[in-house]
């Protein structure tokens, strides 16, 4: 459904992405793993054009696009099929939880207010926060804010959701609730690409793993295969270092 070939990005003179290929099908959940500074977040931001790629070709729903050559209008049209969940939530701080979800529906998708609210409430219900519909972001915990952000993403009925370290900014006791919501989405067949440090979560929820290091995709494989038959020395070292930290 989404395929990337030769994605390159240089920021401030250093090459962050050195030609990345990836492909996911409908219903796939791809976990992007790897050490910090490996280009995971930049990759995800390029996928939604928050950063403009220097080179690369994207095929999305059968349509081939030259990534650096996308016009503002092309990007806007593409974004109506996608959603993005940020590490720091980025809820609109002058809007309530419900308004955060309806905003894009009403303003960008020109939906009727009543219909948008109905859909938004259903989305909030899905993340277990319907009772917080009138709360402002600063009245919500980090975990609740991130769940509202996920509701905002889901409400647009996107073909794919990009999640950038959705639990990295959260207190440990709040992580579980957010991961549970994402797991539920995966079960419902939502296509997602998740940059994460939660290896266990990746192991149990994702269908595919992409391992990024130094701007390259070192490995892309179905999850079972990736974890069972890992032969690459670099990846084994990475997991050993994680074990040490957690051990």
């Amino acid at each position, binding site marked *: 459904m989404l395929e990337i070939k030769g994605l390159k990005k240089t920021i401030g003179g250093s090459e962050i992405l050195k030609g990345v290929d990836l492909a996911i099908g409908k219903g796939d959940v791809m976990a992007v793993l790897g050490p910090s500074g490996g280009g995971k977040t930049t990759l995800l931001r390029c996928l939604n054009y*928050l950063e403009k790629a220097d080179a690369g070709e994207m095929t999305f729903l059968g349509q081939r696009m030259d990534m650096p050559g996308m016009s503002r209008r092309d990007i806007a049209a593409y974004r109506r099929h996608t*959603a993005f969940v940020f590490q720091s939530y980025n809820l609109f701080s002058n809007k309530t939880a419900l308004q955060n979800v309806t905003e894009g529906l009403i303003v*960008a998708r020109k939906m009727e207010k009543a219909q948008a609210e109905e859909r938004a409430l259903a989305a909030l219900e899905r993340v277990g926060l319907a009772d917080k519909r009138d709360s402002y972001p600063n009245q919500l915990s980090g975990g609740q*804010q991130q769940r509202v952000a996920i509701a905002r993403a889901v409400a647009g009925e996107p073909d794919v959701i990009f999640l950038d370290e959705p639990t990295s900014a959260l207190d440990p006791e709040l992580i579980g609730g957010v991961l549970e919501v994402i797991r539920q989405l995966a079960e419902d067949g939502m296509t997602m690409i998740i940059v994460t440090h939660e290896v266990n979560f990746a192991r149990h929820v994702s269908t595919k793993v992409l391992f990024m290091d130094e701007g390259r995709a070192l490995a892309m494989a179905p999850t079972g295969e990736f974890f069972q038959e890992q032969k690459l020395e670099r990846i084994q070292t990475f997991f050993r270092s994680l074990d040490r930290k957690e051990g």
Partner: protein
Amino acid sequence: MSGRVIDILISSFPRILGQGLMVTIPLTVISFALALVIAVVCAMVQIANIRGLKQLVRFYIWIIRGTPLLVQLYLVYFGLPDLGLMVPAFPSAVIVFALNEGAYCAETVRAAIEAVPKGQMEAGYCVGMSYVQIMRRIVLPQAFRTAFPPLSNSLISMVKDTSLAANITVTEMFMATQRVVGRTYEALALYSEVAVIYLLFCTVITKLQAVGERKLNAMNGGNVIRA
């Protein structure tokens, strides 16, 4: 205080306050409203980085902030007639105060817009909104909350600065006082009286600012502390 002074104070009070309500306040309100429009436009031009216009705005701010308000008043009221441009006193004052305050407020508004986290813009793009939509519905309302206290400051400043308009024959509150002093020679008492009236006006604005801040906070969920 002699009975004569008290009589003068009492009889002059309605006249001075009257000029305050009929000239000082309208002059302030009209000029400040125009200044806000100028400020938002100038801030947006700079934020959106519109080439040519941005340089023009920087030039305008440079000139206004680098020259005295009094000189600007004289230039427009006494200077422009040399070019055949006669502007009556009150409109001259409005033009100068609006342009002057606009330049300062432009910087306030620009700083407030820049203080809105970049993630708000990105989140807007990701739900499919356009730059203009995000600015209008997300960024500017948040920036307004940040800009509100310094803008109130500017407004309070302007109430008092309008006394400079006396120099170009606008019969606002201060000039009304000067006239009474000219007749009665009670400078201390009368200038104290007008000072108290300015203080009164500014106290009202300060109270309004507090009410406004409470309203704006309520629209952002109780307080402005952001996680």
